[in-house]
C-alpha cells in the first residue's frame, strides 16, 4: 500500500492529538495495532513489528511488574515507563513516514502545496541529515574507543568534560563540512533556481488516502467524544 505524505502527516498529527487526549490503555493498544498494521502494509516487512513488541514490553512492565515490586521502585520507574510508552504511537507514525517517504517525493508534494521553498529546503535537509548524523556519531564513538581518550584521567568532572569535547568538536566540524557538501549538491541540482521546479514525483491523493484520512479523523473525533462527553 502506498500512502501520500499528506495522509501520513495528517495521521501523525491526529495520532499525537489522540495520545494527548486519551487516558485509556486499551484505546492506546488499539491505536498501536492499527498503526502497526498500516506500517506492515506500507513497508511489507514484518521486521518492522519490533516497535510493537517493544511497546508491549513497556505495557507489561507497567501492568504486570509495577503492582508486584516495592512502591519505591514503581515510583522511580513510573515516569520513564509511562512517558516512553505514551510516545510509542507517535514514534510509529514517524517511523512510517521515515521508512516509506522519499525526500524527492516529499519535496515535490510540498512544492505543489505552495509551501515556501526555504521551509522545504530546511525540512528536506533535516530528513536527509539524520542518517548521516547517526553514522557520524558511530564513527566518533569508535574513534574514541580505539584511542582510549579518557583512559588516564581519574577526575570524573574532567572525564565528562573531555568526553563532551571529544564528541562535540568532530561533530561540529563534520556538520559544517556536510553543510558545504550538501549545498554544493543542492546547487548542482538547481535547488536555488528562482523558477518553480517541475514535480515529476508528485502524485495526487488517491481513494486510499481519502479513506485513511477519513478514518483518522473519525477515530480522533471518537477519542475526543469519549474523553470529554463520556468521561
Amino acid at each position: 500500500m502506498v500512502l501520500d505524505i499528506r495522509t501520513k502527516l495528517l495521521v501523525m498529527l491526529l495520532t499525537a492529538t489522540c495520545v494527548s487526549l486519551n487516558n485509556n490503555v486499551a484505546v492506546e493498544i488499539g491505536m498501536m495495532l492499527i498503526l502497526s498494521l498500516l506500517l506492515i502494509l506500507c513497508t511489507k516487512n514484518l521486521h518492522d513489528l519490533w516497535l510493537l513488541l517493544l511497546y508491549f514490553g513497556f505495557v507489561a512492565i507497567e501492568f504486570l511488574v509495577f503492582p508486584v515490586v516495592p512502591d519505591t521502585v514503581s515510583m522511580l520507574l513510573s515516569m520513564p515507563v509511562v512517558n516512553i510508552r505514551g510516545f510509542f504511537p507517535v514514534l510509529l507514525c514517524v517511523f512510517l513516514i521515515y521508512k516509506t517517504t522519499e525526500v524527492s517525493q516529499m519535496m515535490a508534494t510540498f512544492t505543489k502545496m505552495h509551501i515556501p521553498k526555504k521551509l522545504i529546503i530546511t525540512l528536506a535537509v533535516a530528513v536527509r541529515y539524520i542518517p548521516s548524523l547517526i553514522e557520524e556519531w558511530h564513527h566518533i564513538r569508535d574513534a574514541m574507543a580505539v584511542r582510549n581518550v579518557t583512559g588516564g584521567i581519574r577526575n570524573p568532572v574532567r572525564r565528562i568534560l573531555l568526553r563532551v569535547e571529544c564528541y562535540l568538536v568532530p561533530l561540529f566540524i563534520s556538520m559544517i563540512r556536510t553543510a558545504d557538501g550538501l549545498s554544493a549538491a543542492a546547487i548542482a541540482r538547481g535547488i536555488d533556481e528562482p523558477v518553480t521546479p517541475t514535480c515529476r514525483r508528485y502524485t495526487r491523493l488517491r481513494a486510499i488516502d481519502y479513506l485513511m484520512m477519513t478514518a483518522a479523523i473519525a477515530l480522533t473525533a471518537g477519542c475526543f467524544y469519549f474523553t470529554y462527553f463520556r468521561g
Partner: protein
Amino acid sequence: MKHESAKMTTRDYITGAIFSVLSIVCMMISAIANMSGKTALFYPALTAFFIGILFLILLVKVPKRGIVIVFSIVPAVYFLTSGLLEGMIGITGILIFAFLTEWILSKDRSSLKRITLGGLVYTMNYSTIGFAENFLATDNYCDNALAHGINPSVVEGMRRMYAIKPLWAVAIAATLLTAFLGMQVGKIIMKKHLKKVGLA
C-alpha cells in the same frame, strides 16, 4: 577579502537545518531530566545548555537575518508530535522567541555580547512557555499525568512542587545560567578548535 551576501543563501539554509536537527537531538538527550518528577524542573536548563552551544556557533558561522527562524523550524515540527493543542502552543512559543531574538540581533550580528543576549532570550522559551501549564494550571497538568498512569505518589510530589510558584523563577534563572554557560563553552570550542581549522 571575501564578501558574503547579507541575504541567506542555500548554503545558509542547509547549515541552519543541520544545526536545527542537532538541536532536536539535544532536546531528546535533555529529556532524561523528565524521567523523574523532581528533576523535570531542570529539563529547560539542561536543554538550554546544549542549545546555547549550538546557537553561538551557528550565529558566528551564519550572521544573517532569518537564521534563528531556520534554526527553529525542526524543533517547531517536533512540537507537532505532542498533539494538536500542545503542539500549537509549543510552535507559537518557539516562533515568538525566535522572532524576538531576530529583533534583538537585527542591529548588530557581529557582537558576541549581542549574540549571547539573543541566545539567552531564545532559550527562555523552554522555561517560560514550556512550563506555563505546569505552574499556571498545576491541577490540570497533574490530573492529566495521573490519568495517563503515572504513580500517584509521584504526581502528588509534582503537585506540591509546582504549587511553589517561586520555583518557576528558579527554573527560569537556571535556564538563563546554563544557556550562558553553554554559550561560553561554544566560544571555547570555537576559539580552541573551529578557528584553527578555518571553520569559524
